[in-house]
């Protein structure tokens, strides 16, 4: 086990896949939003110079070029930077990458990875803070991964690159510099397998990405007050590990879902709807969602923190749910 940052683990996955498969290509912009961690990717630049392309500011064109190349088996990783920027390529992601397999009656597949950095990043204001996960989830044909830690980031990125479907890999700016242990060697983490990040019997918190970190912090505090939290880290939204969610709710009887998208039609809405359909009898009390408030993200960081889901709001919601 080596301790790595989230960014390093992602780069490691990309390096391994580029090494293993000559069909893997990389669009080289602000890779993964890693910013100050760019030294981690210098060796990729040197080793795979013929498969790396420096982009102009042309999200739509590049998304569609990567999709077109995917039709001939080139597996392009396209880091789009801030998730807000992917709206500029919405048509290409939803209507081309996400639909080509279906429209060809299965003849064509689109192995492409769109990597974005979502969420409240500290002063990003309205146009640099989007959380597009639930909008994407409403579009058929796209896999969605949302890791919360370096070890998962690496294994999920390897799966995303190898997948024959278009994948949107949703990271968070605030995860990039966090570090923890990553298993040695190459390993894949399949999509659709949630991970229980903490076991507990009183309340289930379902989350993904940075909100798992917040949930873990909240769980520590709640535990001192006698509330034991079980945390289900979804890791991928498509496919969704319904069994893991239902199993945990079966154990605790209480459900809280945390998500950075605004509440209506969010990840939280969908998880709760799923439990309502398939496990209504498991619930002892109505489920609760903790989302970004249904407003735009103000530039002021005090207000930004106020509109976002955070540890305090999770603690407050969990307490209400349990009492």
């Amino acid at each position: 086990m080596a301790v790595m940052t989230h960014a390093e683990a992602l780069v490691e996955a990309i390096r391994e896949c580029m090494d293993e498969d000559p069909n893997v290509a990389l669009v080289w912009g602000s890779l993964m939003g890693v910013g100050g961690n760019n030294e981690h990717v210098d060796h990729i630049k040197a080793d795979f110079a013929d498969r790396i392309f420096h982009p102009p500011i042309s999200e739509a064109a590049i998304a569609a070029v990567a999709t077109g190349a995917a039709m001939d088996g080139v597996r392009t990783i396209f880091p789009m930077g801030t998730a807000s920027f992917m709206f500029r390529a919405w048509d290409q992601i939803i209507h081309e990458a996400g639909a080509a397999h279906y429209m060809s009656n299965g003849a064509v597949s689109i192995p492409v990875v769109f990597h974005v950095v979502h969420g409240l990043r500290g002063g990003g204001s309205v146009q640099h803070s989007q959380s597009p996960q639930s909008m994407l989830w409403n579009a058929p044909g796209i896999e969605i991964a949302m890791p919360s830690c370096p070890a998962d980031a690496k294994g999920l990125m390897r799966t995303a690159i190898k997948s024959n479907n278009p994948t949107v890999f949703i990271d968070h700016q605030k995860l990039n510099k966090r570090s923890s242990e990553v298993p040695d060697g190459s390993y894949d983490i399949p999509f659709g397998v949630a991970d229980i990040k903490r076991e507990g019997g009183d309340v289930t918190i379902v989350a993904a990405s940075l909100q798992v970190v917040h949930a873990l912090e909240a769980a520590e505090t709640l535990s001192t007050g006698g509330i034991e939290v079980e945390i289900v880290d979804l890791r991928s939204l498509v496919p969704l590990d319904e069994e893991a969610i239902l199993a945990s709710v079966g154990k605790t009887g209480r459900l809280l879902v945390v998500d950075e998208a605004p509440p209506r039609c969010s990840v939280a809405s969908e998880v709760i709807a799923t439990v309502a359909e398939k496990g209504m009898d498991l619930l002892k009390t109505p489920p609760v969602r903790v989302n970004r408030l249904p407003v735009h993200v103000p530039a002021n960081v005090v207000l930004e923190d106020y509109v976002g889901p955070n540890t305090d709001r999770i603690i407050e919601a969990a307490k209400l749910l349990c009492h």
Partner: protein
Amino acid sequence: MDKGRLLDIFRHMMLIRRFEEAVYDFHEQKLFGGHYHLYIGQEATGAAVMASLRGEDRIFSTHRNHGHLIARGVDPKNALAEILNRADGTNGGRGGTFHLADASAGMPHTSALVGGSVPLAAGAGFAAKLQKSGGIGVSMFGDGCFEEGVVFETLNLARMWALPVIFVCENNTPGAVLKSAGGNNTSNLPEGRVIQIPEALGMECHEVDGGDAEAVDSLFADCATRVRETGQPIFIEALTERWPGNYFSFPSRVTGITQVSMAWDGSSIAGEYEDWFRNHDPVLRFARQLLDRGVANSGDVAGIDVEVTETIEAAKEFALSSPVPGTDSVYAHVLAGEG
């Protein structure tokens, strides 16, 4: 030659420079976070363009917007308060450095997305045409915008629908060496000129030295008059110098606090940025022009600097004492009519 007009343009350039130096200090002091962009080195273009615009005109800017607002006459107090995300900011603290805008000054919205504001300016031209307001739309944007498809669509549309718009491309592109190093996202256009794109659409096109305030003023004044008369769009490529502090992922004030005395006393100019001070810094260039032409003497120029520096000092105090917006304010204005 209208001396008052030239001095007014210089005053705005100097005001922008001192404003941006204050913004830099605020960021260094961690009074606001995140990424930001300064207008240092491009003051001549912004100040000269605004000199010909009227109240009914609409101007749309970008992530590099501070100088455009100051040149347009927005109070530096409110602009600086916005950069600190305070309640008295132009956007009530919710926009921040990327989105400074002031509808009362004819700058209704600032998109930070590359190319995002270019079609909005054409929309202002469209409204002016329909409403016969006599106003025009002005789009201030960078050369990197030509990498986005919506910019081509907008130029084509403005020509096709004959919209009264002036597209001012402030080309601050890095030189060939930096481009080939691949280290900067801006302007990876291949060889060739962005001006060829509107030319191909049959649009009236001009290029101008964007560091020469008088040249920009004279060209833009002429273009503004013509757009108002003909209703046809015009494209201007202002070739600006890239400020050496703008080569990094965050601005770096490598050229220090501007010493306006360098305009008449070259003895202190030396070192790595000597060429910048002697030949490129638009504030110093214009100051020298004013002196050479007898529009002002060194005392006049120094006096303007003192005056604008005082204005910025007062603006800093105002911004720092402006309150953080209350948390309940986040719900306001999601939809119109809800208060």
